[in-house]
């Protein structure tokens, strides 16, 4: 058997960082093995994949120690025998047309012109994309774009496949399609694969070995999936890894019986309709909705059903084409859609899907202080509130850190904190758990449940069935921009099979 990957005492430190992302790594991967790389957030999983793909170049990108060989030779740069699929297809696809996109990698590998197009067609067929070669990449869904990225790799026929969270940026149906495509391709036992993924349960059938990395260190556990999960499942879950069949400590504590009659109404939407310019159909169509205090509302539905658009309208961040949203819990007398930002921040908090979008300051503390100041909280009470919130979210030791340098989970916590610091009556969150590790997930559930129990109205858009299960008092399902079942209770039945993740 040939050794495909061999690391001896290997370590990597990103340029400008004090700590090592990985250190003292000893690992051998033989031909035909399917390895799932696990580890808490920041354990260097993606770093290792990038190193294997030849994308980390010392000394500009960072410092290296030890040895790392792929295909029997020290890694010096990208090699046609290795192919990598990244998390986000929108930043990994290069060309504007489907055929050109696959051809791009073949051109770079100097495949003769006559052989390029047959190979492009084969790859496109193999991933099940039945589009003409001239089809625009922009017209593909996220799941289709990711399958195209898989076809890009397939066309070059690498011996080693590196998959960096290939489904974490996709909605559940898209993720399912990519997974089945990968399962099909990995049926060829001569191919070696290394996969990084948070949501383990769905991939576990594809792999035969699990390697758990330690933050700043090397390999912590290594073995067949069943063995690793049964022996270390609970500790892995506590460190943020999603483990099949193991639940976290947080969610259960916050489960409570859904209530029909809760606090006073906070917000009323009447016949809210949104039509984007140049769109042929309405994104949101005549939606009536009431949101009350002390209640958590989940908005669910397939991609493109208008969930996020509705959430933006409810938070006064988008003016509906017709219909009206009224805020009933105070605020200025002008129509809600035209509230000045300073008033809006006192009453409504919004958590964006990408936390970075809502950062405006140079430090964690300043980020939270801005929110308090804008909401008209005095300096003394404001400072106290910021201090408490940082303490509560375990961000105190990062008070002076730049928000952009935080880890994914820390960024997510900070983004929720920026929305909560002004103590708004309504908190709206767009896919708050998207792509998060299990530990951050637990913390988020706790934060949102706490906000609700404090008397706030909480509304979240999500595909995450587990989140709906533990948090939602009420589920609103959208399809084609219309509410199809505002069921105040029956949570389990509202998510169709396609929405499960």
């Amino acid at each position: 058997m040939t050794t495909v990957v061999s690391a001896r005492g290997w370590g990597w430190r990103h340029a400008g960082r004090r700590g090592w992302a990985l250190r003292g790594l000893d690992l051998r991967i033989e031909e035909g093995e399917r390895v799932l790389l696990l580890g808490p957030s920041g354990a260097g999983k993606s770093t290792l994949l990038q190193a294997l793909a030849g994308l980390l170049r010392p000394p500009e990108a960072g410092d290296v120690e030890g040895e790392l060989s792929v295909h029997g030779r020290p890694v010096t740069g990208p090699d046609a025998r290795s192919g990598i699929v990244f998390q986000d297809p929108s930043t990994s696809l290069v060309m504007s047309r489907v055929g050109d996109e696959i051809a791009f990698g073949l051109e770079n590998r100097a495949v003769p012109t006559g052989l390029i197009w047959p190979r492009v067609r084969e790859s496109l067929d193999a991933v099940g994309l039945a589009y003409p070669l001239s089809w625009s990449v922009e017209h593909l869904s996220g799941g289709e774009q990711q399958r195209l990225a898989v076809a890009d790799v397939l066309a070059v026929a690498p011996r080693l496949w590196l998959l960096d969270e290939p489904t974490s940026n996709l909605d559940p149906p898209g993720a399912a399609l990519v997974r089945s495509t990968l399962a099909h391709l990995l049926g060829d036992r001569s191919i070696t694969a290394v996969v990084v993924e948070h949501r383990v349960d769905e991939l576990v059938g594809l792999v035969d070995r699990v390697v758990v990395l330690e933050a700043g260190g090397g390999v912590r556990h290594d073995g067949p999936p069943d063995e690793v999960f049964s022996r270390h499942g609970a500790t892995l879950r506590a460190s943020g890894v999603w483990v099949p069949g193991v639940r976290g400590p947080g969610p259960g504590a916050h489960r409570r019986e859904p209530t029909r009659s809760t606090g006073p109404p906070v917000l009323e939407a009447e016949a809210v309709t949104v039509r984007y310019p140049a769109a042929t159909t309405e994104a949101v169509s005549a939606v009536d909705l009431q949101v009350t205090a002390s209640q958590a509302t989940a908005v669910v539905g397939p991609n493109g059903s208008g969930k996020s658009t509705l959430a933006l309208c409810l938070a006064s961040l988008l003016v509906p084409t017709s219909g009206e949203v009224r805020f009933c819990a105070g605020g200025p007398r002008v129509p809600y859609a035209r509230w000045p930002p300073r008033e809006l921040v006192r009453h409504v908090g919004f958590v964006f899907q990408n936390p970075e979008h809502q950062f405006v300051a140079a430090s964690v503390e300043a980020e939270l202080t801005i929110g308090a100041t804008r909401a008209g909280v005095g300096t003394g009470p404001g400072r106290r509130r910021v201090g408490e919130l940082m303490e509560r979210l375990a961000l105190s030791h990062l008070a002076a850190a730049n928000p952009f340098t935080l880890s994914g989970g820390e960024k997510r916590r900070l983004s929720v904190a920026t929305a909560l610091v002004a103590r708004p009556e309504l908190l709206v969150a767009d896919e708050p758990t998207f792509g998060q590790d299990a530990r951050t997930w637990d913390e988020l559930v706790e934060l949102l449940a706490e906000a609700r129990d404090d008397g706030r109205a909480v509304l979240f858009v999500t595909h995450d069935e587990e989140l709906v299960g533990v948090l939602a008092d009420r589920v609103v399902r959208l399809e084609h921009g219309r509410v199809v079942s505002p069921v105040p209770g029956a949570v389990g039945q509202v998510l169709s099979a396609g929405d499960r993740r």
Partner: protein
Amino acid sequence: MSLTVDTPLVATRLARRHPLAKLGVAAVVAAGLLVSVDLVTASVVLAIELACLPLAGVGWRFLVRRAWPLPLAAGGVAVANLVASNAHGVAVGAISLRLVAIALPGLVAFASTDPVDLADALHQQLRVPARFAYGSLAALRLLPLLSVEWQVIRRARRSRGIDAGRSPLGAARLWSSTVFGLLVAAIRRATRLASAMESRGFDAGGPRTVARRQVLGAADWALLGGSVVAVGGANALAVVLGTWHPLLW
């Protein structure tokens, strides 16, 4: 703010011509009209252009929708010249017509050229390095994403309670902080895209093949030749009629 790469004429007959042939025509027209400022040369060339557009598959609708700023700009130039200088009315007319006649072929060339074809042509015929030609192309693909991002960042600022207030200084500050946010996002995306391109062997220094061969065919040469004849003929006619007025001597 909307950033999109728009090529409304990619379905026309002209779109099939080699990008460099089309840009060549624009260059020939510009060079031929810069020689002389006179009403005859400019109006003859413009008349030939307008007559050729329907043959190339470019309809009047395109002209109305895309080329409307041209007569406007020409009118502006004319007014400015009449007011600010003591130029002759005929010369002013010539300057304005010339502006439209020079700009029109360039406008049509870009509107009928797929950016991918242009990158191919630059790389294959003009030997522009792949790193530059396809690197720019990839960057172009990110523009619409940035336009979406701009919207999101603006909404995020609103939700954080950040507004410009009434002062123009506040507006400028808000705008610059939004631009900074966009820049950070753009750099992140660009870095990721560059990694993805590198992982696929781009710019590795080795040999590279081309999937789409761009060839300057007979029709392309005919297009170029035709433009030389038309522009040359217009100048000759002006000489014969005695209106030819060279700019430099």
